[in-house]
């Protein structure tokens, strides 16, 4: 009992801290990094519901991300519909899409399910490229100005700074975490985990497999589409490879794999590692730090090589990370930490 209260207090404190960050931090760059973090957490937690808890490892979540992003952007550009209205159209569409995809893919198991999920995401990507009147095809949709958000007559924000995006991102990440928390302790969540552990046994116990798989999928898809819509209005540009590509799906999975699937904090941990790592590599932070510390001369062969190439190597390092995690930490960081904690507990006793 005490532990739960302690955890809740810490969580509220962290939340309060995050909520006031924009008052003290002015740098748009720092806010940008936090927004990327929130986005990553939202994506990871959403996938985790279907993949981690229900055990259905979809490698095609880009389909839902893309539907959310495209619907919002299309309505904004073509009809001037504000994103906070348009996003619900995206949700409605993604529910239909998810149910269709579920009806196709859930008949399959294991590797075949994975392949089917990839195929549907690819089909959606190709549709986005070819249905040019609807989606502007490969050119993508570019909208850099958002309508002001008004309550009655008062303008809450005109989206000129990053601050409103920070709060939206925070809210989204929080929602996904809360829903995951609910799932973890609810009957629905237990059914998911039963399906994950042994689908046939669960079926023989009377659990309606198809229903619960689809429930998991719909929840996961809706949350992912919200993340997609958020991405669209934040970045201002969407095109088929960016929001519907296979690497988006892989990226989302990576967050959970590295952090630990089927756990509450896994995607959060995964995001905390991947987002700063990716940015540090891309912006040459490593090289600059090495130079500053004096380990490498800026003009030396090594220095120049690192400067030129390390930023392009961030995907390479992702790959290495994946391989290392799968080989040595297949339950992700959370799994690793739990193992450590068990060992400490044992030693303490």
């Amino acid at each position, binding site marked *: 009992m005490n532990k739960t209260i302690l955890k809740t207090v810490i969580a509220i404190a962290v939340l309060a801290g995050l909520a006031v960050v924009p008052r003290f931090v002015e*740098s748009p760059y720092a806010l940008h990094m936090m927004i990327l973090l929130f986005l990553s957490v939202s994506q990871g937690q959403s996938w985790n519901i279907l993949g981690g808890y229900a055990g259905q490892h979809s490698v095609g979540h880009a389909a839902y991300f893309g539907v959310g992003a495209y619907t919002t952007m299309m309505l904004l550009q073509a009809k001037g519909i504000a994103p906070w209205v348009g996003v619900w159209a995206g949700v409605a569409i993604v529910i239909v899409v998810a149910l269709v995809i579920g009806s196709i893919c859930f008949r399959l198991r294991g590797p075949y399910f994975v392949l089917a999920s990839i195929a549907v995401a690819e089909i959606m990507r190709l549709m986005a490229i070819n249905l040019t009147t609807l989606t502007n095809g490969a*050119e*993508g949709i570019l909208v*850099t100005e958002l309508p002001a958000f008004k309550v009655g007559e008062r303008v809450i924000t005109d989206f000129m700074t990053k601050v409103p995006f920070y709060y939206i991102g925070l809210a989204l990440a929080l929602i996904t975490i809360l829903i995951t928390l609910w799932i973890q302790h609810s009957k629905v969540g237990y059914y998911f985990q039963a399906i994950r552990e042994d689908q046939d046994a669960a079926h023989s116990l009377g659990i309606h497999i198809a229903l619960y798989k689809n429930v998991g999928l719909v929840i996961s898809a809706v949350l992912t589409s919200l993340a997609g819509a958020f991405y669209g209005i934040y970045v201002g*540009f969407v095109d088929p490879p*960016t929001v519907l590509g296979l690497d988006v799906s892989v990226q989302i999975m990576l967050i959970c794999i590295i952090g630990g699937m089927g756990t509450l904090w896994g995607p959060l941990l995964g995001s905390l590692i991947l987002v700063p790592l990716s940015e540090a590599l891309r912006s040459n932070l490593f090289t600059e730090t090495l130079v500053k510390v004096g380990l490498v001369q800026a003009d030396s062969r090594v220095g120049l090589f690192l400067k030129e190439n390390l930023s392009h190597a961030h995907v390479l390092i992702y790959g290495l990370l994946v391989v290392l995690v799968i080989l040595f930490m297949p339950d992700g960081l959370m799994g690793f930490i739990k193992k450590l904690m068990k060992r400490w507990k044992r030693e303490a006793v």
Partner: protein
Amino acid sequence: MRKHLLALGATLALSPCLMGQKIGVINSMSGPEAPIGENISNGIKLAEQDLKAKGIHIQLVWEDDTGKPQISMSALEKLATRENVVGVVGPYTSACSNAVAKLAEKYRVPLLIPAAAKEEITRQGFKNVFRMNAPADKYASSLIDAAVSLGKPKTIAFIYENTDFGTSTSKTAKAYVATKGLQVVADVSYPKGSADYRSTLAQIKSKNPDLVFMVSYVADAILLMRQSREVGLRPQAFLGAGAGFTTTEFAKEHAISENVISCTQWTDDVNWPGAKAFGQRYKAAYGKNPTYHAACAYASMMIMGETAYHANGDRAKTRDGLKAGKWNGVMGEVKFADYDGFTNQNNHQMLVQQIQKGNYETVLPAAFATKKPVYPFPNWK
């Protein structure tokens, strides 16, 4: 005494006049467009040297957009808000340039685009966005006009990559051919990276087009021409609109590039001041012939550097300087004007070239031509 001198020296050294104005560069330095992006980087580096020789010191801040618009956008934001640059030169691709133009206008940072084709970029009334090169409508008109002047083509087939660049350039061209009374017999947009265009090209061949208008980057350009030869597609002319048809790699493929007509923003044998010398200098420094992108980037950086210097690092003054100025250099006469719905567009003369015996020869307009064009396309050897 020494301490004071050192302090004075340090302060002077830190003053922007000696440090140089900060100018941002956004370019595709890695990713699929990197081979052409390299020309832009090198052109800018040569400009940096020349500016220094003139006593104008600039500090370049390089950003790699890897050819993706959203990365280009965040690069511009970083340059505008974190690095506080005076102005930005770049990016390269049409998609990136269009995305970045909107942001440059939002942040009021002068942006000089060296080589992006998409017309729309300078048709949005943006006061802060300037473009050096002639846009896609000129690609279309210079090629079509050339064909129409050399023969009597009646039908035309379009084949282009389904990216922003391919789609927008061919859209403009299709509108133009309608005004010239040419009939479009085929309109194919292909996904980049296909291994096999043969069936599509066979289909185009069956429609017997007088002209084939292609928009591609390098690798597809080569494949398209190879496979055109295989299926025996033989129009009156192959019109290559787009970077892929103007590179050395393409010209080197003698069997398939001979007699392909393409349009370009620059060649080294045009009598613009310093053009030939630039070509030779580039080759000496980097071991290969420059594409037109190098010249565009060079001229853009020279202009941006000088203007920023004279404006003393003020963004608004730089923008005014770009609008008011007039230059004459390796790209010929440059003036950013408002005309025909364009804002801050340099009304640049495009050149039509043809590969003859493995070399790019300027064939039109007649004032700049070095060789006579070969028309119609002779039989495949």
